[in-house]
């Protein structure tokens, strides 16, 4: 990737963030409920007059036209100020930073789980195509992609937490014990998807002419697989890995809720329930930013790793 292209991508990221922030901002404006009354709602014993409400509205700039409110917000956001969360009584950024590690730990652990299972299973079932093993893997992955992850989570929680009592059922904190179940839940569902992708990618590579050539020259199957096929198959797999890691950041919300895992998804759902939209907006933008940056990094490394693309300077 040339520098120019990288800058182009960064420009695109900025545009997407602007678009997303505008859409969420507009939605908040259109949504039922009055943010000013919401803010005062915490102190019910204080009687607030309409004059005071109007004053507060003016102070917060909420009586300005929509587009000015958005620009005000944008101006602050660019400087890293995403507003104040009245749910947790903290600046939005501070709360985000507090929940971020939990989400990253869960994403890393489930990605690790996914790789440990899907790489060997996918490669082996591609090599032994149409064997009993292959059919078993295909059957299992088919069921794996059809299981709703929240149901899987509840079932695991019920079996290992309640029936067997091996793992804690109360979440809310980050520890190895509480990590096992959510990471397994996400890992299984992702592994099902990724195993299929690994299998397809390796199969495609195995059908290439160079494999036939290598066989004709009498190279051993294991040499062909390890030295020729797998290095080539790794490149598309890295891209897919980047995508699924990115999806975990947003898609884990449901699983985080099931296990009360204190990550960004959990925070997002809580803040929506409490109608703390400054926080919601901050989370959505933050997740979007991480997702796009991860994909950009993956694409850059993809280009660095692939000699063909490197030579052409693409």
């Amino acid at each position, binding site marked *: 990737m040339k520098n120019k292209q990288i800058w182009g991508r960064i420009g*695109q*990221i900025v*545009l*997407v963030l602007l*678009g*997303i922030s505008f859409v*969420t901002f507009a*939605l*908040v404006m*259109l*949504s*039922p409920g009055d943010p000013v009354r919401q803010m005062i709602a915490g102190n019910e014993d204080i009687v607030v007059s309409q004059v005071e409400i109007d004053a507060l509205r003016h102070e917060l700039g909420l009586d300005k036209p929509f587009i000015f409110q958005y620009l005000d917000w944008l101006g602050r956001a660019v400087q890293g100020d995403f507003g104040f969360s009245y749910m947790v009584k903290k600046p939005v950024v501070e709360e985000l930073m507090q929940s971020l590690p939990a989400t990253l730990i869960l994403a890393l652990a489930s990605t690790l789980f996914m790789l440990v299972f899907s790489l060997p299973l996918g490669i082996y079932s591609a090599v032994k195509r149409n064997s009993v093993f292959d059919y078993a893997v295909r059957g299992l992955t*088919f*069921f794996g*992609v*059809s*299981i*709703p*992850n*929240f*149901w899987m989570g*509840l*079932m695991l*929680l*019920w079996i290992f937490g*309640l029936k067997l009592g091996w793992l804690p*059922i109360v979440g809310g904190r980050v520890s190895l014990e509480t990590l096992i179940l959510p990471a397994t839940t996400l890992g299984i569902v992702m592994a099902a998807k990724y195993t299929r992708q690994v299998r*397809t990618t390796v*199969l495609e590579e195995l059908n290439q002419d160079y494999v036939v050539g290598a066989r004709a020259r009498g190279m051993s199957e294991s040499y062909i697989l390890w030295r020729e096929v797998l290095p080539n198959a790794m490149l598309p797999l890295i891209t897919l890995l980047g995508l699924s890691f*990115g*999806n975990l*950041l*947003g*898609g884990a*919300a*449901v699983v985080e*809720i*099931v296990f009360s895992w204190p990550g960004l*998804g959990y925070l*997002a*759902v809580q803040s*929506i*329930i409490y109608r703390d*939209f400054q926080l*919601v*907006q901050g*989370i*959505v933008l933050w*997740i*979007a930013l991480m*997702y*796009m940056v991860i*994909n950009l990094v993956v694409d850059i490394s993809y280009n660095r790793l692939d000699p063909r693309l490197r030579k052409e300077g693409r």
Partner: protein
Amino acid sequence: MENLINGLKNNRAFAFSSFLVLLLIGIALAAPLLAPYDPLEATMKNAYLPPSSEHLFGTDKLGRDNFSRVLYGASYSLSSVLLLVAVIFAVGTSLGVLAGYFGGKVDTVIMRISDMMISFPGMILAIAIAGIMGGSLINAIIALTIVTWTKYARLARSMVLKIKKRDFVEAAVVNGGKPTHILWKHIVPNILPLMIITAASDIGAMMMELAGLSFLGFGSQPPAPEWGLMLNEGRQQLQTAPWLMFFPGLAIFLTVVVFNLWGDSLRDVLDPRQED
């Protein structure tokens, strides 16, 4: 259509999965006849009864019969997911066809928006949209449509671009055919099969996402017997009444399996070029 009938005759997987889909729809339609109880009728003294011959799947916190609720859930969940897929299909396909056929500014605007949506994890945006607008089935459908239509628009657009170059379309243009005539008579019929396959194989995934939103409380609202919502209610009683989370989840799982099987085999039947 001919392909479909041949497929039913010759492709056993397609025949079998079509049978299962019809069976599901049959159950959904016949829920009022099959269900032993009213799914909404609360009988407090029967709360939290475990599964028995009287209440096959047990009862919930209001003493409602879980079996009847799961059965009614079939019609509720199936019709909402079919509505969702139909809306996404219609919005995405028509925007894609417009972009592909007219090109120019229309194309640029539609595709820029689509680029924006695609470079973003959809589920978190869907949660935010549905949550901010307030939990309801309609809002959940709108939210999922906003984050999913781009897939259909891109596919439809790329197919229209290909078909536009074919001789019969150019002949129609030369003959002075109006754009609406060319679109409806020549282009739409040619892209429809692949679009329908895509929609059919999406039903399972969409069912999970819709149930996920309901599970979080941003989709269907109580007392609707929707499976995702029932799972949410069951989650709170995991310790005392695990049957409340087991059966609705199993129902979602089986339905998704059936529709995924059907989608895969429909692809084999209608689009034999693609293998594996």
